[in-house]
């Protein structure tokens, strides 16, 4: 069974329809890339998976988003628990104005995941290790997160997401503001993390989608045009529209 199963999903900002009849199966422990031109609905779609669109007034969703068989839009769904299970990393790193340690510890503390101070320390260390940041920050955990480089701040945000033990991580252009080296670190991290998490990444960088993802979904004007293994998508896509987009032939 798929980790996430989406069927006939429509989404509206007020009267404007942003997503049309999307059906998609996202498997566990894989990286799935969403690509498409600006305004194609890929980020909107990403946010329907953990109901981040709820924070935008006057939006409406139709259709089903099942995670482990449970409808995320069901009235009985605990949205806080949903967002713990489905973590998110944004385009611009957004650390809290706190210490490096507190940034990671915060989610653990408010969710009451830890038992003792030692347990909390252990969880913070593990999240920083998993985000490949520990070695760079272990000697300055008490200093401000703003003292970190852009790439380090983004990995801190990934550590913060990992700290609350999610199963799915949504990444909305996580490396678009980073230099090639920092981007490479994020990409290596994504590939490493998929052993334990299901990762969905929105990217404008075709090569990044090709490098890190197992499957790629191409969106255009709110519709899903093609969803295929990444290897097929970039060597022999089924749809002419996909080929035109990935080869920059769009007019």
């Amino acid at each position, binding site marked *: 069974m798929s980790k996430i199963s989406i069927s006939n999903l429509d989404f509206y900002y007020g009267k404007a329809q942003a997503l049309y009849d999307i059906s998609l199966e996202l498997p566990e422990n894989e990286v799935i890339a969403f690509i498409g031109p600006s305004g194609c609905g890929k980020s909107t779609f990403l946010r329907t998976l953990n109901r981040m669109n709820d924070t935008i007034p006057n939006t409406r969703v139709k259709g089903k988003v099942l995670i482990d068989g449970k409808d995320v839009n069901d009235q009985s769904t605990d949205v806080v628990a949903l967002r713990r299970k489905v973590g998110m990393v944004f385009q611009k790193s957004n650390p809290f104005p706190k210490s490096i340690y507190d940034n990671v510890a915060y989610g653990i503390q408010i969710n009451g995941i830890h038992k003792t101070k030692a347990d909390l320390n252990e969880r913070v260390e593990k999240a920083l290790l998993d985000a490949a940041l520990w070695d760079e920050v272990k000697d300055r955990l008490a200093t401000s997160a703003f003292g970190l480089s852009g790439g380090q701040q983004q990995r801190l945000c990934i550590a913060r997401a990992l700290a609350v033990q999610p199963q799915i991580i949504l990444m909305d252009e996580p490396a678009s503001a980073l230099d090639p080296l920092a981007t490479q670190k994020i990409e290596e991290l994504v590939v490493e993390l998929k052993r334990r998490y299901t990762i969905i990444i929105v990217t404008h960088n075709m*090569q990044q989608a090709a490098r890190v993802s197992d499957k790629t979904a191409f969106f255009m004007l709110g519709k899903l045009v093609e969803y295929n293994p990444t290897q097929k998508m*970039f*060597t022999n896509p089924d749809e002419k529209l996909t080929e035109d987009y990935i*080869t*920059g032939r*769009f*007019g």
Partner: protein
Amino acid sequence: MDHRIIDQQLDVLRDKTLLLGGATERAVQRAMQSLLTRDSKLAQLVLDEDKTIDQMELEIDRMSVEILALQQPAAHDLRLVISVAKITPVLERIADHAGNIAEATLIINEEPQLRPFSDLSLMADNAAEMLRNALDAFIAEDAETSRRIILADKVIDDAYRRVFGELIGMIINDPTTTASAAQLLFVAKHLERIGDYVKDICELTVYLTEAAFIKHSARN
């Protein structure tokens, strides 16, 4: 975006491949003509022009790597660059075989003339025609024709077996012909190998067109 930077570069790459293909075709035809007409001058010309073909190969290699590195092609664009990069050394090897035939011609022309071998001419005609059609099919991205050309290689293989038998028979019957007959055996083998290389070109046209690798597959 109507005109992409990569389009212009892919056009140049295609043109250079066509030029190399033309030069290779010419080398095969001249080599066989030099053999059949005992024209040592023409044979020498084939050998002299081989250096130009080597240079053309290097230039296409350089350009393929540059497009891969700088344009990062995908889908059909990627398959075109990969196909060209794989076809180029095949063409260069075909030209090498033409050079080997020219070398054999120079040796044979020092010996008394043997009787003509119709199957050798048949092999040469077929090999040249297959090569020309394979290059046309590559440029036209015609997978169907390419598949037909692959099957046509059997005619060359059959002719090779007959030529081989005849030449061995000739050596047994008249050992004085050994030197020339041995060279003709080499020529026949070179033509047979050219047929195989043309098949490789056709397989790459199928890859370019259908993204399917048919090399080593049962249906091939």
